[in-house]
């Protein structure tokens, strides 16, 4: 789901609590990695820096607080720093440091006196210290490319346009496959299409088995639609994580690739780097990234590459790419209480996304006028887009003008109506079941108890002595019923 980005002046706390950070995909990925994976990652200073920034502020500052100390962090230090009561349980302290422990930065340890200490990961500590002092040796911030001074290099604007075009091209391809009509789009390269298929964002409908899909005839899935509605940073990390998972599935080492992502995130927009010297271990991955617009290469086989803003904004942490000019461009929607939508944009992709759930009536060069109506919203919902996704899309793209009216940002009637439409679609809840009709109250009650204990019960209607159980538990329950029957009949 789209985060109602934190630069939201009046973000609704209830909605923000349900949303996730742009790096959610990364977080899930990292949470499933083992110690050795992190050991390898932390060899790169750039990774240490980015991981540090991804921690919650309190945790982050405790790490920094202890960075230059020779002793490991102790529970008692954390408690005194955080003004905790001395009686607070170890678990609570653990909970504060949990993100760091999960990232294997700290290893909680009971020392001899059964006091908890938190020694830091040596690789991380060294990496972070080197990042701050610039004394590292891993070239993780990128080796600049040696070029002639008068060489013609693209400026930042050009790089941004390049990156944006490349990535939006993929998104447009996805949208147009779903809309049927759409607009002329170039088909992305095969590797990209493969990733889209593997990730489940697109699927070949003519190949239900999934064994032999035709990459040229894929259409977007409901997961794909949800992907479209997310903000850029989330999309980027999701794509990268799909890429990484695919690598892992091919039993390739992904740590080097992941650490390259972080290095790219720490690079300077407009600067050119040498691929072979910066990422000797991940050259093929770097090539792949070029297809998504993360980097720009003047010549296909050149060693020189420029990271685009897609790459350099990767590690901008919770500030996301929502800052600056990029953010302003994304704020173009005005939604009125009469369901009319005015979108001040000429971006084909945004219009196509809007077209998913908005009945577009008028198109001017820089303005699209449409209406949120039942038909379009419901057809969007058929595609697997939920009301919550539409709402968060609308609010994250709200025009600054909309913040001038009293909160909430979107009028409650519209939000409610969207939820109602969503509900309408799901008026029937169906589940496979096995019904047991009883005539004996005693047997009914015993069976009900048994079914409940085994979490097999779906529904029980005592006055009609009906019992509905999960189909897969049918054998076990019948077994039980038969036993009980024999017992009861024999007069126990």
């Amino acid at each position: 789901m789209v985060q109602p980005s934190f630069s939201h002046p009046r973000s609704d706390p209830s909605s923000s609590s349900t949303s996730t950070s742009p790096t959610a995909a990364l977080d899930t990925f990292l949470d499933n990695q083992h110690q050795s994976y992190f050991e390898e990652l932390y060899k790169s200073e750039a990774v240490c820096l980015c991981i540090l920034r991804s921690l919650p502020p309190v945790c982050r500052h405790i790490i920094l607080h202890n960075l230059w100390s020779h002793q490991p962090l102790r529970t008692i230090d954390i408690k005194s720093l955080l003004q905790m009561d001395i009686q607070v349980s170890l678990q609570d302290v653990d909970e504060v440091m949990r993100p760091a422990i999960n990232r294997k930065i700290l290893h909680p340890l009971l020392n001899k006196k059964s006091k908890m200490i938190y020694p830091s990961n040596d690789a991380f500590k060294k990496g972070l210290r080197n990042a701050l002092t610039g004394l590292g040796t891993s070239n993780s911030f990128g080796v600049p490319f040696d070029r002639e001074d008068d060489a013609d290099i693209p400026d930042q604007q050009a790089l941004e346009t390049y990156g944006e075009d490349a990535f939006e091209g993929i998104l447009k391809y996805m949208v147009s496959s779903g809309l049927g009509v759409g607009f002329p789009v170039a088909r992305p390269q095969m590797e990209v299409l493969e990733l889209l298929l593997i990730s489940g964002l697109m699927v070949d409908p003519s190949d239900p088995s999934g064994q032999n899909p035709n990459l040229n005839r894929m259409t977007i899935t409901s997961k794909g639609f949800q992907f479209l509605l997310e903000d850029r940073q989330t999309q980027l990390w999701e794509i990268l994580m799909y890429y990484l998972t695919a690598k892992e599935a091919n039993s390739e080492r992904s740590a080097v690739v992941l650490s390259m992502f972080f290095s790219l995130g720490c690079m300077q927009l407009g600067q050119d780097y040498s691929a072979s010297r910066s990422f000797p271990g991940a050259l093929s991955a770097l090539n792949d990234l070029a297809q998504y617009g993360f980097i720009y290469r003047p010549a296909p086989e050149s060693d020189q590459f420029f990271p685009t803003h897609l790459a350099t904004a990767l590690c901008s942490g919770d500030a996301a790419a929502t800052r600056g000019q990029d953010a302003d461009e994304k704020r173009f929607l005005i939604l009125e209480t009469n369901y009319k939508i005015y979108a001040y944009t000429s971006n084909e992709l945004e219009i196509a996304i809007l077209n998913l759930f908005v009945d577009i009536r008028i198109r001017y060069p820089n303005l699209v006028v449409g209406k949120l109506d039942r038909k379009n919203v419901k057809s969007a919902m058929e595609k697997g887009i939920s009301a919550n996704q539409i709402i968060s899309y609308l609010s994250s793209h709200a025009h600054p003008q909309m913040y001038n009216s009293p909160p909430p940002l979107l009028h409650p009637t519209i939000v409610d109506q969207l939820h109602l439409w969503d509900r309408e679609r799901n008026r029937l809840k169906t589940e496979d079941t096995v019904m047991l009709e009883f005539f004996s109250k005693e047997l009914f009650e015993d069976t009900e108890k048994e079914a409940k204990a085994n979490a097999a019960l779906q529904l029980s209607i005592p006055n009609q002595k009906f019992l509905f159980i999960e189909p897969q538990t049918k054998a076990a329950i019948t077994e039980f019923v038969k036993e009980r029957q024999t017992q009861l009949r024999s007069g126990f």
Partner: protein
Amino acid sequence: MAPPPPPVTDYKSYPKTTPPSVLLVILDIHPLSWSLLSSPPPAIPYPEHPAIDKAQATPMTLPDFVTLLMVFLNAHLASRWGNEVVIYGASAGRAKLLYPPPPNAVAGPSKPRPNTYHPFQLLDSRIEEGLKEMAAEEQDRLEHGDMKTLNQPPAMVSALTKALCFINRILPNNSNSAALVDPAATQDPSAPASNAPDKPETRILVINSTPGANVSTATSSNEQSNAEVNENGTSTNGNSQNGKGGQMRGGYVGLMNCVFAAQKAKVPIDVLSLPPPSIDASPPIFLQQAAHLTEGIYWQWNGRGGLLQYLHALYLPPPSLRHHPFAVPPQDAVGFRAVCFCHHKTLDIGFVCSVCLSIFCEPRPVCLMCKTRFPIKSIPTLKTLATYIEHIPIPDTVPPPPIPKGAKTHQQNENNKRERAKGATNGDASGTGGRGEPIEID
């Protein structure tokens, strides 16, 4: 100092994000002060804590310190995306912006180093450049025989005013366009503050290297002339605590104005005072007052190394985390002394004009500022009232650390102990305080 909030154990209440933070550093690079710091006298013996007593006094040179400072600033930049650093150098009688460089002065971006995060590299190289420029200027002044200005105290007030102007510029709600919105809306304190969550928070870190609280500047000429013209030379040092706590020239008013402006903008002024007790027993009381009044952190180095750890431990957390959830480091007793307008002495007890509240160190028949005539007859009475003043040593009341601390926090522990030691030496400090005697400007 706000009373410490009750112990909070609910880690769920910890902030999930913090606003981006701008750190404005004012670095005192007064050459004379640094020459003192680079060859410190032996540290004051410290029998209470053998471990600390063993540690030798560490000489600290400006390049060494700047290296530490750079690491600290990098850590600040590292701690959150969007954090920024602004550095002012305050040298004898002048202050200058060192970083960020003026926009037109940016030479082509230097080639990135493969092992340094580029923003760090920009910051570090620019600080180095800026300091070299300032050093060259100082050299210039020296060669042109401009000895007088070299002896001036560092231009802390000027640097502070510049920093505050900078903050005023970057804070969106202080902009002039905001002043045009409906006053009824903005003036209602009960109205929810419409500040966006990404409004940056700012703080100022003053790094003082000049002993004896000599951290003032030349007085504003207006004040100076007023005071000097009316000076009839009948100064009697009778009841002023001359030299105690260092002297403060007319910069006192400027410093106080800065403090109030900072209070208004809710900008904490942190103070790190480098001269260890062995060089100067008296704290820079006005900077200490500044830190106290703006809820900043004041701390004096003990001269025994460990500065990098102290910087990270004390000054790194942004204001939004300082009181909750983090604990504020224990602070010293603060002397609320003032400076008289007539002789620029630091006073414990002074004579105050009832009309304009000007402070004088001795009774006088006419107020220097507002020309109010005072009853001559009361002068002797006033004199007797103000006599019999013995200086009170700052008592030994620094709170013990809330929980026993051991190896790691022995820094803080050491801190406390040191403060005690300072308190003890403070009683007879009047002799050493004279070290910071400023040179009068005529």
